């Protein structure tokens, strides 16, 4: 993570700086006799962006809802900003941002009117270092809804509604932001704007972000760390590069020489092999491709390994959860 001026972080940290913002240990959740989460453990530091990946029904939404304080867990220890979400008070709540999937709620409210009203809820929790709420005009500008400020929410397009959802999530200048599949239904431009926004929040405001997504490309672009949840456990935790190295120590290299196509799996990152290749053949080489394991390879390998290995008939795709 980019270094942040300590003047930004110090006053807002009511908990000690080295304490993780999210601290989840051996989190378990069962519905009836079905165990959805079987011991999830991970931590997040201030300003980190975490992407939670996993197949449908793996328990991503359940995990995030437990952290948001919307759902009671069966067992394990969870701490968000130093507080157990099961007993979080309103002051604690004011430091969180939750981006919900809207459907047709508040359809008659005008965009600016709704943001203004929601924002007021955060005013009692404003402190000099973190003025709450965020100014409505500024917020509209950040999410690109300035031109729609006076429109009733029900007249917004799907993508515009999602932008509004994000705006509502950050109106209180949260220290932790939870996003459950934030970019579902975004067009490529909206997606890029959203990525800029997340970077801005984590870099400039030191916001800790936990998001779930099915878009591996998005996870790779946004996240400092990627968590893969499968079979009720975190089966991988690290940056995209770290995970790639974990899955495969080789790099695939393809080239053409004398009209013929060659391929070779080289140890490590492949640089040494390519250097040698050029030293030997020089200008005869064309159409060079160096392909290291992608996040998709990692994801597939991890999930597959889990499903064929430890997994038994009970998962995935069980019970309560449908995401």
């Amino acid at each position, binding site marked *: 993570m980019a270094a942040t001026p300590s003047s930004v972080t110090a006053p807002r940290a009511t908990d000690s700086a080295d304490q993780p913002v999210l601290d989840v240990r051996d989190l378990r959740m069962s519905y009836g006799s079905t165990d959805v989460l079987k011991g999830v453990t991970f931590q997040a530091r201030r300003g980190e962006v975490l992407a939670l990946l996993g197949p449908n029904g793996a328990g991503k939404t359940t995990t995030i809802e437990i952290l948001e304080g*919307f759902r009671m867990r069966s067992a394990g220890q969870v701490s968000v900003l130093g507080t157990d979400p099961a007993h979080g008070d309103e002051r604690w709540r004011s430091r969180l941002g939750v981006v919900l*999937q809207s459907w047709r709620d508040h359809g008659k409210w005008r965009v600016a009117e709704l943001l203004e009203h929601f924002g007021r*809820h955060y005013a009692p929790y404003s402190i000099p270092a973190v003025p709450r709420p965020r100014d409505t005009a500024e917020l509209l500008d950040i999410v690109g809804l300035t031109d729609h400020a006076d429109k009733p929410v029900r007249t917004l397009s799907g993508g515009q509604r999602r932008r509004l959802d994000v705006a509502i999530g950050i109106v209180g200048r949260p220290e932790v932001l939870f996003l459950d599949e934030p970019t579902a239904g975004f067009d490529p431009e909206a997606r890029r704007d959203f990525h800029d926004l997340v970077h801005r929040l984590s870099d400039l405001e030191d916001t800790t972000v936990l998001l779930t997504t099915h878009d591996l490309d998005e996870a790779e672009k946004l996240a400092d760390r990627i968590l893969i949840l499968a079979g009720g456990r975190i089966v991988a935790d690290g940056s995209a590069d770290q995970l790639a190295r974990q899955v495969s120590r080789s790099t695939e290299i393809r080239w053409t020489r004398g009209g013929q196509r060659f391929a070779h799996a080289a140890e490590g990152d492949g640089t040494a092999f390519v250097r040698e290749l050029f030293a030997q053949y020089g200008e005869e080489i064309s159409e060079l491709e160096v392909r290291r394991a992608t996040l998709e390879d990692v994801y597939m390998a991890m999930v597959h390994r889990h499903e064929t290995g430890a997994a038994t008939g009970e998962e995935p795709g069980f019970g309560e959860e*449908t995401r």
Partner: protein
Amino acid sequence: MTTTLSALRLGLLRGWIEFRHTLLTPFDLFSYLLNSAIFVVVLLFMDRNEMEDTQLYGLGLTQATLALPGVLATMLVLGGVMSLAQTMSTDREDGTLLRARALPRGVQSYLFGKVVSTSLITVLSMLVILAPAVLLFDGFQFTAQGALTLLWVTALGLLATLPVGAVLGSLFPNPRSLVLVLMLLLMGLMLVSGIFVPLTMLPEWLHWVAQVFPLYWLGLGMRAGLLPDAAVAEEIGGSWRTLETAGVLGVWAVVGLVVAPIVLRRMARRESGSILERRRHQAMQRTV
């Protein structure tokens, strides 16, 4: 403490904004005031009947005059119980409530807001009947004391009915089945509560059923506020029973204000994105 106050203020604001939205949405306004309009038309027909068979014959009272207070009481119950239950059930289904849950003191401000907006629209729906009725029908008795009676009965009536509406709105899984069940219940209660027919004309065991529920007492209180003193002859015990009215409505209010927060807290605690998603799925399947 200060934050509870600020939640109260936010609730007032929210209620006012929602009330304004209703006034500015022709369809909503129409559906809220349709009942009022229907009742006014019914009352117009009843105005021809001069109560020949009762002790009230010759007082210049028509059936419409006698029924109007009960109609006001019915509108109050319709608003306080039905519309609140219905909007809360809808708000749960469409995610309004979950959004409130994500805000600090959000559920509190949401509930205050609902109480304010529902009260305002309920009082409006009563005024829409009261205004033409006093112009068109004879036999009302307007006194300062009567006006005061109308005010406290309305206020206490809202306190007695809104918690019931909130509890029902929290318990029923979907707004459509709720409306159907409540409408049938309310129509049954109207029959036995002396709204259109003086209670003294009904068998006595029905009196006891009626007197358990707020509707009868609201009707009685409204009659006490609007009708001439002579009309008391058709009431149970020949009295307006002001103390009993305040007592029964008060008990409903107190019990409601104790029970509702417990039920609401349990309901709000269960709201989450995935539950909402499932409801959205079900709602979609119904509409397809």
